[in-house]
C-alpha cells in the first residue's frame, strides 16, 4: 500500500457537524441552520425508528417474521438523508431503509409485510415517492438513474436519491448507474451507506480507495460524511440534492457508518468480527450524541425523553398488533397482477388451481378470512 493511502482517508475528508460527544461543529461547505424543534424532531425520528427496528427483530425471534434486516446503527444516515428529501423527490431503497421509509411516510407496519411473507411490498411507490425495497444488490441504482433521466425529460425540478451499500459498490449495475448518470447528467444522488460489512466481508475487500473517491473517476463529486451524525447527513444530502435539482448532475454521498447488528436475523456476526469493534462504534452511537447535545444545551428535558420513549412503546405495540393481525393472503392471490394486460395462460392455471382448491373446500372451510 502506498503512503498516499493514509492521506486518502484523512479525517479532514469526513464531514461532521456533531461529534460523538455531542459537540456542534461548523463546516465551511455544509452550513446548517436548524431550529430547536427540528433538532428534537430529529431525535424523535432516530429514537422511534430504533424502537421499531428492535420490535421487528423481536418479532422475528418470536417466529412472526421470516427474516428481518436491522438498521441498528444506521439511523442517522437514514433519517438525515431522508429528512433532506423534498416531497417531489424520489427515493430508491435497498431492503434496510426503514428510516428513510419512515421519513417518506410509509407506515412501519407496512414494511413488515415483505418480511412476514404476505406480499413483496406494502405501499404505493407513487403515493410516497418511495420505491419498493429491492433485494438484488445494486439493481435499484439503475432504476434511480433512469427515473432521474425521466425527471430531466419532464423538466421537473426534483431529484432522485439512490440508496446502496459498500458491498453494492462492487456491482456492475452500480458502476453502470454512475456512468449513465454522469453521461446524461441525471439529477440523482447516490447515497452510499458504508456500514463496513457486506454480510461478513469487510469494506477493504470491496475497494482499495475510500468509496466516495470513486465518484471523481466517473466525473462527479463525492463526499464522505459521518454517517452517525444526523446533522451532517442532513446538510450534505440537502446540498447534494440541490446540486442535482439545479441540473449539475449526479452526486455521491458516502455515509461512513456501522452496522451494529447482524446483516439479518439469519446472520451471526460473532463468526467474523470482534466484539471490540462494536464497542468502539457504540461510542459513536448516532442517537446518544444528539441526546448529549440536546441535554447539554438545555433543549430537552427528562419529560421530553420520557414522552419519546412512551411514544416508542406505543409504536412498538401498534406494530406488533398489526403484524399479528396481518390477514393471510388468499391462495389465489399468487396469480394476481402477473401482467398488466392479463394472460390467458395465467387465467387458465388460476382457474385450474381454484378448482383444485375447491376440491378440499369443506375441510378448509374453517379457515376464516
Amino acid at each position, binding site marked *: 500500500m502506498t503512503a498516499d493511502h493514509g492521506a486518502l482517508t484523512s479525517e479532514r475528508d469526513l464531514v461532521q457537524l456533531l461529534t460523538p460527544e455531542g459537540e456542534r461543529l461548523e463546516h465551511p461547505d455544509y452550513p446548517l441552520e436548524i431550529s430547536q424543534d427540528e433538532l428534537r424532531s430529529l431525535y424523535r425520528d432516530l429514537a422511534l425508528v430504533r424502537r421499531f427496528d428492535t420490535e421487528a427483530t423481536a418479532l422475528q425471534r418470536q417466529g412472526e417474521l421470516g427474516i428481518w434486516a436491522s438498521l441498528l446503527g444506521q439511523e442517522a444516515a437514514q433519517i438525515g438523508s431522508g429528512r433532506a428529501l423534498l416531497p417531489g423527490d424520489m427515493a430508491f431503497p435497498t431492503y434496510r431503509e426503514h428510516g428513510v421509509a419512515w421519513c417518506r411516510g410509509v407506515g412501519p407496519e407496512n414494511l413488515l409485510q415483505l418480511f412476514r411473507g404476505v406480499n413483496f411490498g406494502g405501499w404505493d*411507490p407513487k403515493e410516497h415517492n418511495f420505491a419498493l425495497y429491492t433485494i438484488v444488490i445494486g439493481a435499484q441504482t439503475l432504476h434511480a438513474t433512469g427515473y432521474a433521466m425521466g425527471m430531466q425529460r419532464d423538466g421537473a425540478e426534483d431529484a432522485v436519491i439512490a440508496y446502496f451499500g459498500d458491498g453494492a459498490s462492487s456491482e456492475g449495475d452500480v458502476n453502470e448507474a454512475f456512468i449513465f448518470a454522469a453521461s446524461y447528467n441525471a439529477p440523482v444522488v447516490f447515497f452510499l451507506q458504508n456500514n463496513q460489512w457486506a454480510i461478513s466481508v469487510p469494506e477493504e475487500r470491496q475497494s482499495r480507495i475510500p468509496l466516495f473517491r470513486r465518484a471523481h473517476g466517473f466525473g462527479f463529486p463525492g463526499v464522505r460524511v459521518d454517517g452517525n451524525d444526523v446533522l451532517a447527513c442532513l446538510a450534505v444530502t440537502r446540498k447534494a440534492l440541490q446540486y442535482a435539482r439545479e441540473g449539475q448532475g449526479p452526486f455521491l454521498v458516502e455515509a461512513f457508518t456501522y452496522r451494529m447488528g447482524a446483516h439479518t436475523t439469519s446472520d451471526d456476526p460473532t463468526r467474523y468480527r470482534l466484539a471490540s469493534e462494536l464497542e468502539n462504534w457504540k461510542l459513536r452511537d448516532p442517537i446518544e450524541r444528539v441526546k448529549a447535545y440536546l441535554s447539554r444545551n438545555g433543549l430537552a428535558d427528562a419529560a421530553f425523553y420520557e414522552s419519546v420513549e412512551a411514544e416508542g412503546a406505543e409504536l412498538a405495540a401498534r406494530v406488533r398488533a398489526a403484524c399479528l393481525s396481518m390477514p393471510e393472503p388468499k391462495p389465489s392471490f399468487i396469480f394476481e397482477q402477473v401482467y398488466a394486460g392479463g394472460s390467458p395462460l395465467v387465467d387458465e392455471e388460476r382457474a385450474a388451481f381454484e378448482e383444485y382448491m375447491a376440491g378440499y373446500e369443506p375441510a378448509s372451510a374453517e379457515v376464516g378470512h
Partner: protein
Amino acid sequence: MAPVAIARALNMGLRKALESDPKVIIMGEDVGKLGGVFRVTDGLQKDFGEDRVMDTPLAESGIIGTAIGLAMRGYRPICEIQFDGFVFPAYDQIVSQLAKLHYRSQGMVPMPMVIRIPFGGGIGAVEHHSESPEALFAHVAGLKVVACSNAADAYTMIQQAVISNDPVIFFEPKRRYWEKAELDADTPLAQAVPLHAARVVRPGRHLTLLAYGPMVKTCLDAAKVAADEGHELEVVDVRSLSPIDWPTITDSVRHTGRCVVVHEAQKFLGMGAELAARITELCFYELQAPVLRVGGYPIPYPPSRLEEHFLPDLDRVLDTVDRSLSF
C-alpha cells in the same frame, strides 16, 4: 406501395410509435446517428431528437436498468439489444426486475417496455451474433415474448408491442431483415391481427408446420416442395411465444392430425418442447403421429462456416415431415 424490407417496416413502425406518443423513447447502442447496426432506427434521432432516440453508453444492464427507471417515471422505452448474444449482461435486470415489478407491486408499477433483439443465425457472423435465446425469456413469468417473420407483421407488431402495458421481448429475424413484402401502412392498428395471435400463413390438410421468426420462410418453402410431392402442409406462424395462441394452433393440428415444430434454437427445452407437450395434451385424440421437432443441436452455436449444418433447412424440415407422415 412498393414492397418493404423487414428492417424498413420496423423503422416505419417505430416512427409511428414515436409520433403517436411523446412518452415513447428509443434507447440503445448506436441507435442514433448510425441508425443501429441494422439501420432499423435510421433517421429517427434526426427527426425526434437525442432525448427521445438515445445513444446509450455501452452497457446492456445499464440500458435495461435505466429504461426500467424511465418506465417507472411514465415513459415507454424501446430498448435495442444489438445482437442476441449480448442480451445476457442485461438478463438480471430483465428477469429479476423488469419481469417482476408489476407483480411485486401488486399492479402499481407497470412496465410498458419493449426490448428489441435481432436473433438467429445464417448471416456468417462471429460468435454471439447468431443465437436464438427466446425460450430463456418465454420461460420467465411477467414477460411477453413475440417474434415477427415478415415485413407486414414487423410493422404492426412493433407498434402493438409499444402500446402493450407489459414488457415485451421482441425478436427480429435478422437474416430476413432485407426480405421485402407488401405492407399496408394505412390499416388502423386496432384492425390488425392481435399481437399475441398466431396466424395460418399457408393452409393445408396433411400436417401442421409450426414456426416463428426466420423459420417461417423456411417452412413456407418446404410446404411448396411438399405440395409437389402430394402433401399439403399447413404453415402456422406462431408469432407470440408467450403467451401462446393455443386455439389457433390446436385448430390447425386437430384439422391435420400431425404437427412438426421448427425453430433454430436448440431443440432441448426449446419452444418446441412446450408446443409439443401442450399439443399432445390438447389434441391427444386427433394426433396421428407424435409431435416432432426440427431445431438446433445441443451444442453451442457453431462457427459460421458450419452453421448451415446447425440451422434447420428445407431438407431437414421435409425429412421430419416424412417421418411424421409415416406414422
